[in-house]
Each structure stands twice: as structure tokens, then as C-alpha cells.
């Protein structure tokens, strides 16, 4: 009897390294630092079948340069005709900053958890973004606006460092047409700025002081995106305004190397940001060590 071993093929996991071939179809400069990239899956069938939910992310691959996670900033109804809002800050994003239309890239995903806007139907929604946090927040904003009648009052609070750093400013008028409360605040005014100046928490504090948040306890969900330092301050205020911890949703950022729960780089405690996140309810965040 021959007891030599035979090489067998893997049991599963064919899709582990699979990425969709995609093309950068358009690039819009948004500010000095950020650009909006329209990235379309090349295969029409794959594009149609690419179904994601607001808050999920993709791994964007630039062959020979690198691969990194980016949250999808477009509406889910666009399927695999994606928009990613990317700041040129690292090796890969600075390279991306220099490429133009027609560049072929790899997209894998969608990965991770999403903002459960489908469960918020019938409720008031408060969406809060700080800085680049508007990138992941724009997807649930658009998703809510597209099905506006299913929600109660919708309020957006967005804070940026300077007026010139405000992202998607060309869309604000459109958002407001959907009966949306949109408050914008900047840390530092610039010539021509008419709006309020200060931190995002000041708008919240003002609303609490005016009793505008009294209705929160009845059924309001909050979605919060921003730099790590922002979460605790904003979420503490929301809790003070009686929003239940399990109805506050945040999107956490970690540098992922696989997006598939295998590289461990995005671990928070026993939790993978790529599989169990990036969207967490605040109850989970309170239970995690070093989450924010």
C-alpha cells in the first residue's frame, strides 16, 4: 500500500484574495486635502450584485502600492458604482491623489457591520460628524434621505476645523430640501463665514440647555463619526440627553491589513473592527478596552 501523501486542494476560502477589478471613473477635488473618487466595478454583473449597507467599508487595492480600508461614502442604491472620500495623508493615499480617471484598481468587500438605519424607521435620527467623519456618515445620510418618509425628525450636526475644510458643501442645500435640520460649526472662522464657531459639542450643549433634546428619550437613534477624541465627548452628551447607549452608533477606525478577521491588526480586546465593526453600538464600546 502506498502511504505517500498526495497534495490536496484547499477545502474552502477561494474568495479570500478575490478582488473586483474596478476603474476610477471620476475624481472630484473636495478640499485641499480630500478628493471624492468615483470607482466603478468593471464587470456589470459584479457591479449589480455588489450590495452594501451604509457604514460598511471596502478594501481598496492599488497594485504595487498598497491596500487599505475605506468606508463607502455613496448611497447603497448605487451598488458597485462607489464613491470613496479620501484624504491624502499616507503613502497610498498620496499616490492616489496623483492618479486620474481610467486607473484600474482592486476592490474587495463590502466588509463589516453597518448603521442599522432599517431598524431606525419610525424614529427620529441624529447624525453627528466631525471632520472626515462625514465620509462614512454621508452613506446613511443619503440612505435616510432616499426613504425620508419612513423617519421622523432628521438632524445632522457637522463640525469641521475651518470653513474651507467642509466636505460636500455643494450638497447641503439638497439635503435641506428633504426636511432635514443641518447645523454646521467650525473651530476657526475664515473670511466670509457667517455660521457658528466652536466645537461640535457646543451645538449639542445648546440644544440640551434649550430642552430640544427632551424628546430623545422617546425614541431617537444617534449615529456618530469622527476622530477618536470626539467620541467620548459627544457620546457623553448624548447619554446626558437620555439617548440610550444601545441606540448610539459609532464607526471606529483602525488600520486593517486584511479586512477579513485574520491579520489581527484592528483588534480591540477580543473584537475585530473589520468583522464586529466598524460600526458598534455604544454599549459595545463601553465594554471594550481602549476602543476610543
Amino acid at each position: 500500500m502506498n502511504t505517500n501523501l498526495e497534495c490536496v486542494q484547499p477545502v474552502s476560502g477561494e474568495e479570500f484574495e478575490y478582488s473586483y477589478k474596478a476603474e476610477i471613473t471620476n475624481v472630484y477635488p473636495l478640499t485641499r486635502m480630500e478628493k471624492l473618487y468615483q470607482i466603478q466595478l468593471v464587470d456589470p454583473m459584479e457591479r449589480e450584485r455588489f450590495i452594501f449597507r451604509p457604514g460598511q467599508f471596502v478594501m481598496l487595492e492599488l497594485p504595487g502600492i498598497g491596500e487599505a480600508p475605506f468606508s463607502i461614502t455613496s448611497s447603497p442604491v448605487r451598488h458597485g458604482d462607489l464613491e470613496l472620500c479620501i484624504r491624502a495623508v499616507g503613502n497610498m493615499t498620496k499616490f492616489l491623489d496623483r492618479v486620474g480617471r481610467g486607473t484600474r484598481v482592486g476592490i474587495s468587500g463590502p466588509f463589516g457591520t453597518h448603521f442599522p438605519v432599517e431598524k431606525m424607521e419610525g424614529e427620529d435620527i441624529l447624525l453627528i460628524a466631525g471632520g472626515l467623519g462625514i465620509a462614512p456618515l454621508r452613506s446613511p445620510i443619503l440612505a435616510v434621505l432616499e426613504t425620508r418618509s419612513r423617519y421622523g425628525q432628521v438632524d445632522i450636526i457637522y463640525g469641521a476645523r475651518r470653513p474651507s475644510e467642509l466636505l460636500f458643501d455643494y450638497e447641503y442645500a439638497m439635503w435641506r430640501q428633504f426636511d432635514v435640520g443641518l447645523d454646521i460649526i467650525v473651530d476657526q472662522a475664515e473670511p466670509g463665514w457667517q455660521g457658528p464657531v466652536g466645537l461640535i459639542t457646543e451645538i449639542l450643549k445648546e440644544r440640551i440647555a434649550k430642552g430640544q433634546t427632551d424628546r430623545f428619550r422617546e425614541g431617537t437613534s444617534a449615529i456618530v463619526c469622527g476622530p477618536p477624541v470626539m467620541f467620548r465627548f459627544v457620546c457623553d452628551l448624548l447619554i446626558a440627553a437620555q439617548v440610550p447607549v444601545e441606540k448610539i452608533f459609532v464607526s471606529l477606525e483602525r488600520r486593517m491589513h486584511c479586512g477579513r478577521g485574520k491579520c489581527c491588526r484592528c483588534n480591540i480586546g477580543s473584537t475585530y473592527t473589520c468583522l464586529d465593526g466598524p460600526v458598534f453600538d455604544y454599549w459595545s464600546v463601553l465594554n471594550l478596552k481602549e476602543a476610543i
Partner: protein
Amino acid sequence: MLFKVFPAAELIRLFELLAADRIVGPVKKGEDRYGRSLYDFDVVHDFSDLHLDYEQTIHSAKNYFLPYREDLCTFTFQDDGSGDGGDWHKEVDYGVYAPLVLFGLHPCDINALNKLDKVLLGGRYPNPFYGEKRANMFIVGHSCSPQPFCFCKSMGTDSAIRGFDLFLTRMDDLYFAEILSPRAFHLLEQIDCHDPDSSEHRHYMDIMEARESLFIAHVDTSDLTKILDLEFQASVWEEWGQKCLSCGTCAQVCPTCYCYGVEERVDMDFTRAYKEKQLYSCNLLDFASVAGGHNFRPESHTRLKYRYYHKHRGFVEAFEESLCVGCGRCGQSCLARITVPEVIASVRASKE
């Protein structure tokens, strides 16, 4: 489980039957300054190079199932001259073309593979690079003599009950064999072996009992997950952090550390690029840094603490067992002499 007994002199025939495939086992690599032998896993070409009496290898056999460097894919560029960089083609090769025999793994290292299987082959995205290596692996385990730094007994990994094809225990001039796979069963049919009689059963039991008494190091794991949560802010972590050099040696020698990073490299003529996976260590400074410069674990003690939390708390929460197998390699290799039993004991003793 089936058991067989064969004369120790037959081991070379077993080895040669397996030698048609690549055999990796413990080989002597040199001596330390006290004249003690140093062992490591390497390809064994000659039976006489196989040192089954090794105390412990410096590294685990990880390089053969989680290589330190491994290409995840190859990109071939086709520049059509249009100026947009042209198109590219992606090819994925799991890189396994031949089976591998791991000869002489101790129970801790077999259990390390069992634990890695849970995380790397489970979940929504099983890792095929690891999976294909595992599917083409024949494992011959070998019993060990507990060393002063081994705390596998505390971690419940001092014996292997699954995850091997054949497990050998030396009984004077005999080998007691535990058989878990048909391949191993057919292999033993080709050498001179017999079913153990009652005196050989007794002999085996005596050896196992004698081995029990050799364990010295001990880690109290009772309620450890809760204690780690309660002591998250304990100052004792900072004390260990001051000793830790953040060099990542512990992860390098650990049989279950699987964290990695990905980098791409490009051929000199720009026709091809490779996506390369490199094993990483959570103790290295930039492990949890993100774009824009923020680092979630900038101090060395936060990274050291994270390593203990992942091994002894996070993995327990996910899989109801610790990721640590108690092989003691990290403590033996640590330049700052930080050992798991001491760290856990100090955290347990912390009264804050």
C-alpha cells in the same frame, strides 16, 4: 483511538517510509554558552539529524504553516501606453505543491495548531494559505519531558488528544504509538509492530504518571478573564512595560502568534508587483497606528498588556480556551526576561 507498540529500532524504517515527502523535525543548531544543545525545526534529510530527545526548540514550527514572509498574490502589469497606468492581472497562488511531514511535535505545538485552526479556518473568511498547508500536513507527535519553564499543564495543553496522525511515546526500547488517521495506521502496517499487552499498558501509564510530577511552572488561570478586566488599569502593567523592549521576539517564537501586516513590492522593471504578508508583533511600536499619525497603543505597556489580553482574555471569550499553549518559548527568548507565569501572577496579586 488505536494503539500500537513497536521496537525503537523500527523508528528509522518509519522515518524512511515518510521520507518520500519532505520531513521537518527538531535538529540541533548549535550550543549555548553553557554547552547546552540548541534545537530548531528544519528540514531533516538524514534520520541521524532528527533529535527527538530535544527539550524545546527556540522557534515553533510556525514557519511551515505561517511563514514569516509569504506572497498573497502577484500582479502583472500590462501598460497599453494610454497614460492611465494600463491594466493589471492578479494571480493568487497558495504555494503548496507537496505534502509536508512534521516529525516530533510536542503536545504544546500540536495544540497550537488546533487553536490556530479555530481562528484561521473558521469564520466567514477561512484563510486558504494556512488551510492548504494544514490539509497537506502529516503530523507525528512525540512526548516530551517537561522543562522548568513549561506551563502547558496550567493551560490544559500538556497532552494532545487530536490534531496529529501518529503520536509516539518512548518506553525504554519500545515506542508506544497512538494512531488517529488511516494513513498512520497503514504506515504502521509496514513496520514491525504489535498491539500493546496489559504490561505495556501499565508501562505507558507509569511513564505518563512520572511525567506529571515534572511540571514546575504554574499559572493560575481561574477567573483570569475577569481578573484581567478588573486589573486593566493596574500599575503593574506599567512596571512590565518599563522592562519590555518592544522588540517582538515573543511573537517571533510563539507557536500561536498569527498577526500580520501586508506590504507590496515591485519588480525593478515595473512589470510585476507582489503583495507580501509578513508576520508582525503587537509589541512593535506602530502595530495600532492609523493614517494621520494617531497610535491607539503608543506606550510599550499598553502593547504588552494587549498581547496578554488577546491571548488570555479575547481568545477565551471567542473560543472558550486560551490562545497560549504554555510552551514557555516567549519567556525563554525574552531579552528582558519577562515570563508569562510571572506577569499573570503579578496581575493576580495586584490590589487596585
